[in-house]
């Protein structure tokens, strides 16, 4: 299966060979428990602290502000629940956007069942959250706002700094702290991040989205922020996350963070024209195709379109038969009967949302692969449209 074309880098990325090489000694050679005082433990302890510096460096944080987690979902859950439980006495209101990842939305729903009030702030047709809408949603009971840095489906990059400023103003007015969390799983390692400039208190990262291994992530916790821990047990991660550390994963995450910091600018310079070529090609070669997400304030690797009159999974299967891997927000691919909540939130009717197709580009992506999609997709769309009762051109 060598001639396959992977355009689903937002789902996951391959672990970079240099990252894997950095990890390998930490399985069978350097296997000490970092909590042990002997030399076996000390060498893995040192490796973890070096990785913590690398990850902190990627977002301009201090190493002690990084807590390693099992991934993005745990980081999001820890942020929401950790703040919620730690601040129960100060308030019981949480705000998040309508296009958050389920790791945030479903966590907020869980908290709702446990007595918290949740306000879901809508987005505009491009998927942008309005800082003013966030400001208006804040009540005297608000303890946390969570808005993602960039959306995983439609690629829209949110105005985190502006949202932080309105939260800061309201914090002053209220005379008490309102925490701000951002899920940066799609941006860390892909866009420059400076936590102080963004003005966030908490930020989630996942290693496997930035050419690191699966099963490891991190939560940035601004110094002085109190969280109720998720896992109870040993004193690892400065008492913020019990459990023996995933040493190979952490080492790999550190290496991936370092690599991303070095290659980000170059990679984006390569991806942007490829992204724009694909968007332009799809929207001009195929009639009745719309771009989902903001046209310019968007991730450099994200293309999301809706192809009218047909359904997403049927396109994915046809592409997969040709070795091209993409994804869709159609119900049929989500394991539920509803299309993506993100596409509905930007105002797409159900049948248009069912016809969405996402291509996410990465390090390995070549212009030839973009050309391949632009060559192969139009006949697939044509074939499926001729089968569709919704297609006006089909009733001959």
């Amino acid at each position, binding site marked *: 299966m060598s001639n396959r074309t992977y355009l689903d880098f937002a789902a996951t990325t391959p672990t970079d060979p240099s990252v894997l090489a950095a990890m390998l000694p930490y399985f069978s050679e350097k296997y000490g428990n970092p909590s042990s005082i002997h030399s076996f433990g000390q060498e893995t302890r040192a490796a973890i602290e070096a990785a913590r510096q690398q990850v902190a460096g990627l977002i301009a944080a201090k190493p002690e502000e990084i807590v390693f987690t099992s991934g993005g979902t745990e980081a999001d859950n820890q942020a929401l629940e950790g703040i919620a439980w730690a601040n129960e006495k100060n308030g019981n209101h949480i705000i998040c956007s309508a296009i958050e990842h389920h790791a945030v939305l479903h966590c907020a729903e869980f908290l709702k069942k446990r007595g918290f009030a949740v306000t879901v702030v809508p987005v505009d047709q491009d998927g942008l959250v309005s800082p003013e809408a966030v400001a208006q949603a804040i009540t005297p009971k608000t303890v946390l706002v969570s808005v993602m840095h960039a959306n995983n489906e439609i690629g829209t990059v949110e105005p985190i700094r502006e949202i932080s400023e309105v939260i800061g103003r309201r914090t002053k007015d209220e005379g008490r702290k309102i925490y701000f969390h951002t899920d940066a799983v799609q941006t860390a390692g892909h866009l420059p991040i400076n936590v102080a400039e963004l003005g966030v208190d908490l930020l989630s990262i996942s290693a496997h989205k930035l050419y690191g291994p699966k099963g490891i992530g991190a939560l940035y916790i601004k110094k002085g922020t109190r969280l109720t821990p998720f896992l109870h047990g040993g004193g690892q991660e400065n008492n913020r996350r019990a459990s023996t550390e995933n040493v190979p994963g952490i080492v790999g995450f550190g290496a991936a963070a370092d690599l991303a910091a070095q290659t980000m600018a170059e990679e984006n310079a390569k991806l942007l024209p490829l992204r724009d070529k694909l968007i332009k090609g799809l929207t001009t070669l195929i009639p009745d195709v719309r771009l989902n997400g903001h046209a310019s304030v968007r991730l450099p690797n994200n293309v999301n379109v809706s192809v009218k*009159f*047909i*359904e*997403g*999974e*049927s396109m*994915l*299967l*046809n592409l*997969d*038969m040709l*070795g091209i891997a993409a994804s869709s927000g*159609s*119900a*049929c*691919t989500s*394991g539920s*009967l509803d*299309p993506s909540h993100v596409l509905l939130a930007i105002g797409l*009717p*159900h*049948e248009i949302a*069912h016809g969405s197709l996402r291509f996410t580009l990465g390090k390995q992506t070549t212009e030839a692969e973009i050309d391949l999609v632009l060559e192969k997709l139009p006949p697939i769309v044509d074939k499926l449209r*001729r*089968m*569709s*009762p*919704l297609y006006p051109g*089909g*009733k*001959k």
Partner: protein
Amino acid sequence: MSMGPYSAKVMDHFMNPRNVGVIENPDGVGEVGNPVCGDIMKMFIKVKDNIITDVKFQTFGCGSAIATSSMATELIKGKTIEEALKLTNVAVAEALDGLPKIKMHCSVLAEEAVQAAIDDYLKKTTGKGLPGFKPHDEPLQEH
């Protein structure tokens, strides 16, 4: 060759669907499903001496929606109205060597598309539709 979650037979009927299209002046036409749930099936039949002599379909939907439509048309072509009415969603799924559990609702739609076309045929010929026929108008849950 990669086939996602589907059997080889589902992929065959999906990639090379049988009886796609429209019948001009059909003796019966039925449409089931809705855009909200993401599946719409339209079935056209031609009937002579109580036998379904021709059948065509159009489907908006996922791979299994297209494959079940295709298989259903094959299973009723050349059959009497009574035989076609005995077609069940399970029979459609079995003829395709099975469907993932979450896709079984597609086979229900295929069964209903056949019934809707026959219902329309009966209305046109006898003035009365299929007794007790009422397709789901809500998005179908797993069966």
